[in-house]
């Protein structure tokens, strides 16, 4: 494995005391001196700045780009208005998911934001599946996220106009000559923004945000606990090439127009399986899990129907401690139809510990719709 690549803000992370770890091929801050717990709570209370420049920013251009992209995603791309963003799933032929992503209609092009660990594989799928379109991964832009209830106030003071944006709006803004591409979205369950900024101005922009007393730098550790509380799947754990969108309980992301009976039903890789699962139910489904007691149930913990059963019926795909919940939380896969309140048993270091199936999310989102 080659050495992790440094991101544009590497010097700033070092100055802030970030503990760097390899992630998705990049050197990324997992936490700062405040620690995961404080960082997490600060985002829920005020505002936090995340460097997510490892993610792929991909521009699609060409006639019929939206219609063509519907050939790879089971979502309504054509109907997305200019200046709006939507969640999408890049599909595999057997109905599993190659990656999850955001896509935005920016007028003369579509902008996709994809997971850092998957972006090169995604590019191959996009290029092969979108002949005749220009598919370009941008390398001159950093990506930051400002998340939390005070994100609006802080960013509006620097970039007037962002307060008027609604959840999932996208717009361009000028900041000291820098062309910012801003969306009102995030991966924390809080109101906030994701900001694409040219590399040359990225550090100055990040420093200007951090100059606010309300803004703290946040590492990958708190990013994971925040998204877990928000019930959002992490690609590679809760969502994989073997898991369909319906199994992942992401059916809401497949609009009616792409479902059986819709005007543009099907027509994406794996449509047979996905549409059948929408109509008849999948075998398993992603649910929330609340372990009793204080012991976290982490990824890989097997779930059993009783404390003596020998065959597992499910598995934990993400788990840890939820700082805002104040207790261990997890998500995982159980047989479809397992109702909320069902008590299962997780095998933690050889002990069968009770865990209750629960609805997601653990923390209600506070988006500005």
């Amino acid at each position, binding site marked *: 494995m080659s050495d992790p690549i440094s991101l544009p803000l590497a010097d700033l992370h070092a100055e802030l005391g970030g503990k760097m770890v390899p992630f998705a091929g990049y050197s990324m801050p997992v936490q700062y001196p405040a*620690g995961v*717990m404080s960082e997490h709570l600060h985002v829920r209370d005020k505002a936090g700045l995340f460097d997510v420049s490892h993610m792929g920013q991909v521009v699609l251009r060409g006639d019929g780009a939206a219609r063509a992209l519907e050939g790879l995603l089971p979502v309504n791309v054509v109907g997305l208005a200019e200046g709006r963003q939507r969640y999408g799933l890049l599909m595999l032929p057997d109905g599993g998911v190659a990656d999850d992503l955001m896509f935005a209609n920016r007028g003369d092009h579509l902008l996709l934001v994809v997971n850092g660990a998957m972006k090169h594989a995604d590019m191959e799928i996009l290029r092969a599946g979108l002949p005749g379109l220009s598919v370009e991964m941008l390398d001159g832009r950093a990506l930051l996220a400002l998340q939390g209830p005070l994100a609006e106030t802080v960013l509006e003071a620097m970039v007037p106009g962002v307060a008027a944006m609604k959840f999932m709006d996208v717009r361009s803004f000028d900041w000291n000559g820098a062309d910012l591409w801003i969306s009102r979205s995030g991966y924390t369950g809080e109101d906030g923004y994701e900001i694409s900024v040219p590399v040359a101005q990225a550090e100055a922009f990040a420093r200007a945000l951090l100059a606010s007393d309300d803004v703290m730098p946040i590492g990958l550790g708190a990013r994971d606990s925040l998204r877990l509380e928000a019930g959002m799947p992490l690609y590679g754990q809760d969502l994989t090439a073997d898991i369909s969108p319906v199994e992942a309980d992401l059916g809401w992301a497949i609009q009616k127009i792409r479902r059986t009976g819709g005007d543009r039903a099907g027509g994406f890789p794996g449509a047979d399986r996905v549409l059948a699962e929408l109509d008849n139910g999948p075998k398993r489904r992603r649910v929330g899990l609340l372990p009793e007691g204080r012991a976290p149930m982490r990824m890989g913990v097997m779930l059993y129907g009783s404390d003596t059963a020998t065959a597992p019926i499910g598995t934990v795909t993400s788990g840890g401690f939820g*700082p805002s919940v104040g207790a261990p939380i997890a998500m995982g896969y159980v047989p479809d139809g397992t109702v909320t309140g069902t008590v299962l048993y997780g095998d933690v270091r050889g002990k069968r510990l009770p865990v209750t199936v629960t609805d997601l999310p653990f923390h209600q989102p506070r988006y500005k719709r």
Partner: protein
Amino acid sequence: MKYTEDHEWLEDNDGVITVGITGHAATQLGDVVFVDLPEVGQTVSKGEEIVVIESVKAASDILSPLDGEIVEVNDALADTPGLVNDDAEAAWFFRMTTTTPEEMDGMMDEDGYKEFIGD
């Protein structure tokens, strides 16, 4: 006070040895959210995993520093795991007696431990 290379501290009071983890180890672990303690009366061997500590980041083990028997555990940690981060030198995990007290003579003292962690 004696220290192990596994970042444990040991304090011997007339043959009853109190064991905890160092402040350095607590900082490395991050916020501790769960501690699984051994049973009182449990016979343990040096190197055996007898405590599980879960932080917000990951699970880690504490190994028994000596052969012997657990005589007391700090139940306060089960209810308030964050005590480890507040003051690691006060947040003891368990007390034990040992059949090999002479092994403590070979362990690091405070200066030796500071050198070990490069402080």
